[in-house]
């Protein structure tokens, strides 16, 4: 009797352990999907310098100087290995380090702030499932005062308030899913929306393209304007582009866009890419012809 009880207890314990392991594996898999929908976090990989995946150190040229992405592997000393859940959520949603200091807005917390806690914690679980890489973060080579942490705090005070994504009840579930993915997770606006003189996104020209994309690249106008945007693309063109990088004219995506498709968007479920495309098609066309800044 007693033995039977003990055996039952042992089995229950085993089952619970298995269930917990299953839950963790599910969460890691979901986190990987979140990472892919974000474009693979490729800014945190220094491909040209031969850096390990997600170990940071990639130079990101901005009008304010060169910033270096951080190590987001779970290394305890140089990565995010000591981040608790609350630290991770605060970093992603509020742009604050565990010590309370402000992150430079080159890290797009301005978009990630819209992400759900559920998606963010799944992402954290995935990142923490990866091998830790020891690689110290590098301070920015930025013009004073832009490279000072205190400037990041001032910038946040001027331009940033943590805001969750709010579904629009007037729109259907597909549109809302697309809006959530495009604005928060995939952070399209960080490259494709023009910025003002202090580097804040000009939300009146949302996704209308930017001459000052990351690494000095030109980020095209994604609104359906026929002349300066992608109004001549069909829905199928948009989905196909995110899946393969192939443009309607037979050319292919370049530079950072190629990277985020390769390491991220191409793996996103078709229904989600569909939703992103519907969202982009719903935008008001904005006329914004991009010219290279001298």
């Amino acid at each position, binding site marked *: 009797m007693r033995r039977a009880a003990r055996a039952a207890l042992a089995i229950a314990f085993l089952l619970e352990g298995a269930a917990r392991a299953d839950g963790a594996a599910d969460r890691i898999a979901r986190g990987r999907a979140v990472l892919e929908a974000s474009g693979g976090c490729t800014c945190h990989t220094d491909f040209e310098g031969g850096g390990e995946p997600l170990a940071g150190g990639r130079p990101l040229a901005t009008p304010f100087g060169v910033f270096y992405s951080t190590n987001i592997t779970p290394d305890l000393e140089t990565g995010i290995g000591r981040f608790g859940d609350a630290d991770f959520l605060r970093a992603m949603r509020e742009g604050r380090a565990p010590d309370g200091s402000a992150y430079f807005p080159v890290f797009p917390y301005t978009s990630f702030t819209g992400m759900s806690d559920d998606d963010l914690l799944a992402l954290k679980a995935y990142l923490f499932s990866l091998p830790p890489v020891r690689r110290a973060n590098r301070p920015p080579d930025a013009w004073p005062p832009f490279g000072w942490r205190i400037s990041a705090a001032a910038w946040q005070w001027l331009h940033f308030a943590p805001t969750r994504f709010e579904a629009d009840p007037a729109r259907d579930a597909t549109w809302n899913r697309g809006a959530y993915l495009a604005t928060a997770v995939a952070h399209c606006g960080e490259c494709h929306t023009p910025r003002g003189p202090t580097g804040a996104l000009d939300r009146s020209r949302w996704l209308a393209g930017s001459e000052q994309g990351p690494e000095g690249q030109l980020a095209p106008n994604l609104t359906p304007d026929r002349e300066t945007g992608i109004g001549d693309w069909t829905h*199928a063109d948009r989905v*196909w582009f995110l899946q*393969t*990088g*192939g443009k309607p004219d*037979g050319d292919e995506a*370049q*530079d950072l866009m190629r990277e985020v498709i390769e390491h991220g968007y191409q793996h996103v479920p078709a229904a989600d890419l569909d939703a992103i495309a519907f969202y982009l098609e719903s935008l008001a066309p904005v006329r914004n012809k991009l*010219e290279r800044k001298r």
Partner: protein
Amino acid sequence: MKPRCTALCLFAGIAIGAGSARAADPAPPPEASIKYRQALMSAIGGDMAAIGNILKYGLPLRQNIATHAENIERSAALIPSAFETKVVDGLTDAKPAIWEKPADFKKKAEAMRDQAKKLAELAKAGDPEAVGKQMKALGGACGDCHDDYRKPKEESYKRRAGGGGD
């Protein structure tokens, strides 16, 4: 000799002279090379776009994919000869690096040709998923060469012509 014949002979002589001068002219204008290169690239782009249209809309033309892929394979084989003459000035996005590293340039064109060949084979075998994957690989091979040897869109002559300036 009658004056009429003289005039005729003279005319004929000039005509022959002009004709042979054109035939012997060794140097077509440099922009001719640019135009040819761009036409060849457009042909490849056209076949890529055509395959893309069949796949993205699910057109009942899957049997055409292999032919488009073979077209790309054949066009790819023409790339090294199209870029043999060095022309970097003018309305072109070709980088001078093409003529600094011709062996690598040729290798990348060949890599693209091999991916096109593989696409043709897979298309004939008829596995839709493999065809989709191979399209990505082929697009990647285009991009690998463009990354090194084509000016990025920021520096494209098309943008300069649009009034942006340098």
